[in-house]
């Protein structure tokens, strides 16, 4: 432990941005973009910049570091370090609106080599789906309004940053910033009615048919 935090370096290792009601994480050096689940290498102090897209949020992973508010228009900085590998739970601790309770975050600390593997995997673009259902799911993703908010690297037109990046959504542990475990059944449940699962979340209900739900779910499950 340092007596006082060292000053932040000019470019951070990690930029975490608070949104109502989810976390966006960017790794500027590698270009990885993910949401609600941060992977970090063990034994290294990461310089982390905090930003907000809307209201105040607060980044808090009790076992790893202090709280720090994300203030729109004011870049705050903290250090993030895990000495042992493991999954560390965190949460938004500044009240930010309806779903403040489900604005949780997972920090996965891994050995540097494993972290490097994860980073390489995250950098890959999504592959075109092969199964018939999944192809239909992708078409649905492009034609309904999904792409006006969500990005999927490798899908033309899907580059919006309003909602979580889905390029590797199936590799993440949780859905809806912590409200559901990430299983195919839960993905389907979420797509069926996000407003029922997480009322007040900014994703509206789309009233998909059962068939469409199967297609979308199957497609999203390919995004590893």
């Amino acid at each position, binding site marked *: 432990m340092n007596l006082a935090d060292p000053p932040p370096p000019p470019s951070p290792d990690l930029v975490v941005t608070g949104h109502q009601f989810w976390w966006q994480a960017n790794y500027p050096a590698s270009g990885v973009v993910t949401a609600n689940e941060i992977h970090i290498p063990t034994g290294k102090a990461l310089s982390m910049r905090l930003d907000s897209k809307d209201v105040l949020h607060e980044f808090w992973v009790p076992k790893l570091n*202090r709280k720090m508010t994300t203030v729109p228009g004011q870049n705050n900085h903290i250090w993030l370090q895990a000495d042992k590998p493991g999954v560390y739970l965190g949460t938004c601790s500044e009240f930010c609106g309806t779903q403040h309770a489900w604005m949780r975050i997972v920090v996965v600390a891994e050995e540097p080599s494993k972290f490097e593997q994860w980073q390489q995997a995250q950098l890959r673009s999504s592959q075109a789906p092969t199964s018939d259902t999944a192809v239909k799911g992708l078409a649905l993703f492009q034609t309904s309004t999904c792409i006006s908010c969500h990005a999927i690297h490798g899908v033309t037109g899907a580059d919006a940053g309003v909602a979580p990046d889905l390029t590797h959504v199936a590799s993440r542990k949780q859905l809806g910033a912590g409200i559901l475990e990430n299983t195919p059944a839960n993905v389907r449940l979420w797509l069926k009615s996000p407003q029922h699962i997480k009322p007040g979340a900014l994703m509206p209900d789309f009233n998909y048919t059962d068939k469409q739900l199967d297609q979308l779910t199957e497609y999203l499950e390919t995004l590893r």
Partner: protein
Amino acid sequence: MNGTTTTAMFRAAILDPAKRAHYRLAWLSTVDHKRIAVLYLLTALFFFVVAGVEALFMRLQLALPNNHFLHPDTFNQLFTMHGTTMIFLVVMPVVFGFVNYVLPLQIGARDMAFPRLNAFGFWCVPLGGILLHFSVLAGGAPAVGWFAYAPLSETPYSSNLGVDYWAIAIFVMGIGSISLAINIIATVISCRAPGMTMRRLPLFTWINFVNAFIIIFALPVLNAGLAMLLIDRRLEGHFFLPLRGGSAVLWQHVFWAFGHPEVYILALPAFGIVSEIVPVFSRKPIFGYQFVAASSMAIALLSLGVWGHHMFTVGMGRPLDLFFSIASMLIAIPTGVKVLNWTATMIGGRIRFQVPMLFCIAFLIQFLCAGITGISHAVVPLDWQTKNSYFLVAHFHFVAVGAIVFAVLGAVQYWFPKMSGRFLSERLGRWTFWLMVLGFNMTFIIQHFLGLLGMPRRVFTYPDLPHFTWMNMLSTIGVFFMAAAALVLVWNLIASFFGGKTAGDNPWNAWTLEWATTSPPPHENFYALPPIRSRRPLWDVANPDRPDPVVGENSSAIQIVDKNKAGILTFILSEAGFFATLLLAYLYFYAHPQPGPTPRELDVPRTLIFSVCLFASSLTFWRSEIAMRKRQRGSMLGWLALTVALGGIFLVGQGTEYWKLFQTGVDVSTNLFATTFFTLTGFHGLHVLLGLVALLIFLWLAWRGDFASGGEPAFEAAGYYWHFVDVVWVFVLLTVYILPLLR
């Protein structure tokens, strides 16, 4: 009018049904401090039940993980309303009620200095309560937490009218609190009985006198902040909207510059209560009277400089963190002194373990815990972990409930006999006490640990993490014991009011003047006052052979400042705080310029001309005052009319400036310069306008022939206000018009 006719008229009034209705209405139109006090207390009790039920619903929702009992929005509205209601509609009114009842009695006064202002101050509370709760019908209660952090509280993120009603309600209640504080200060300064010198004041009165000054300094800051928030929300200003260059952190500074002193505004009266009850029930004078009084002043002063400890996680930077950390730790010293005083008073005393004392003993222990967790929040690195967690929730409930509510419940038991003439039941009081002790500690001790485990505050539910579930369940069960305690209390109040044991004038053998009159006291409080030579006049009466040492000079004459002067000067202090906040906000954004209009658009020479008119009007008012004292009616009227005319010219000048800006498309929503400019000068203009109305009233009164006798304190008071408005303009002129020229 002779005595017989008075009695006859009185009897007729009692017998005539129409007039009887009038007497019932007398509770609504009363200006008697005792009746107003009872109205405060009943209002507080009503909202205590409301906010308590809100808490019950929240704890039910949190009893189990992933619970769907309440909709998240409902939960968020509940905690916002619970916090706002408990602070502004329960604890403030309840302490104001006791102050209103007891303070004038303790200093041997007939009433507060300004009885009608007192009634006004009270009626602000129900008005605020209605406004706040009306939001439920107008689209939804506010759901932003009691400190309404921007930008969540701004229209893009809270678009219904909840926050507007919340802000207006608190604004109104703030005005009510300020008016009461003015009244308290003027009463203590100007209405003390002969012999009641400042050094002989009972500690409850002393502490509330000091407390009134915190109100005077803190509440106007909040009201300035609320005005800015409302300008943002309703007129599209940009104070706290980062998207438009505003600052979310500025709101936090403004809010907590009020919010932390507010904690002491609530806590100091509780200290006052304990400082009364502990000596009486230990059968000893308070240990270290001077230290209790002086430490209250130290707390008041320090409380104004500690707000930043609410903001250690917003990135204020190390120097500010350090400053606020040290200031916050310092405040533990005078607070610790008080705990020592109370404990030392009990040592060697013949303690009577009756209900008021039981509550005070529990207060001492729980307040000590609250203080220790409080200091932990002053330690920056600890605060980084515990802030915004259930540890914090537990801490401030230890302050608000464990300390303040317990002291208030002691006060209820202690002063109820004075108010009603009857004792509260000791047996039911014990039930309330033990149920409260059990319920309170069961609910809140465990929350410290929940916070340390990582449960954030203000979540409507939580995942099923290890220990979370049983801890939350235990906390919820505790609430039911507190609810039971509240039910027993209400039953006790009703049953004892109608059938309690008769109390007599001085049921506790206490020593302060409120016990020197009947229970309840007559309309103007005292038939006769005992001589006041020490801090315990009733002890001296009861023990003429061994009276307390005389405090200060043994003279019954005390210097009395005119109450109008005391009142207006206090009012001006509060207004100064309001304008200082607006000025600082102006300067803050002046240092961070935004694109769009700048101070260079302003017409400085023309403004200087009409400023001269305003400054000249101070001079003409002064001349008018001199003429009044010399009883030269014509000259007085002439100078006063000239004052009004000059003030009018100033307003016309400011109006033309606004008009020209509007013509060029600049209004309050254009950019931050415009927002701050119109807010600052607009509020000043509003004050000039109100001053003009007051001066016109005085002009009319003088025209009718009032003030013919020479000295008139009310006229002088209006003069102070008018000079103050001019002084504010000096600062505005320098800041807004002259400062940019120096660049």
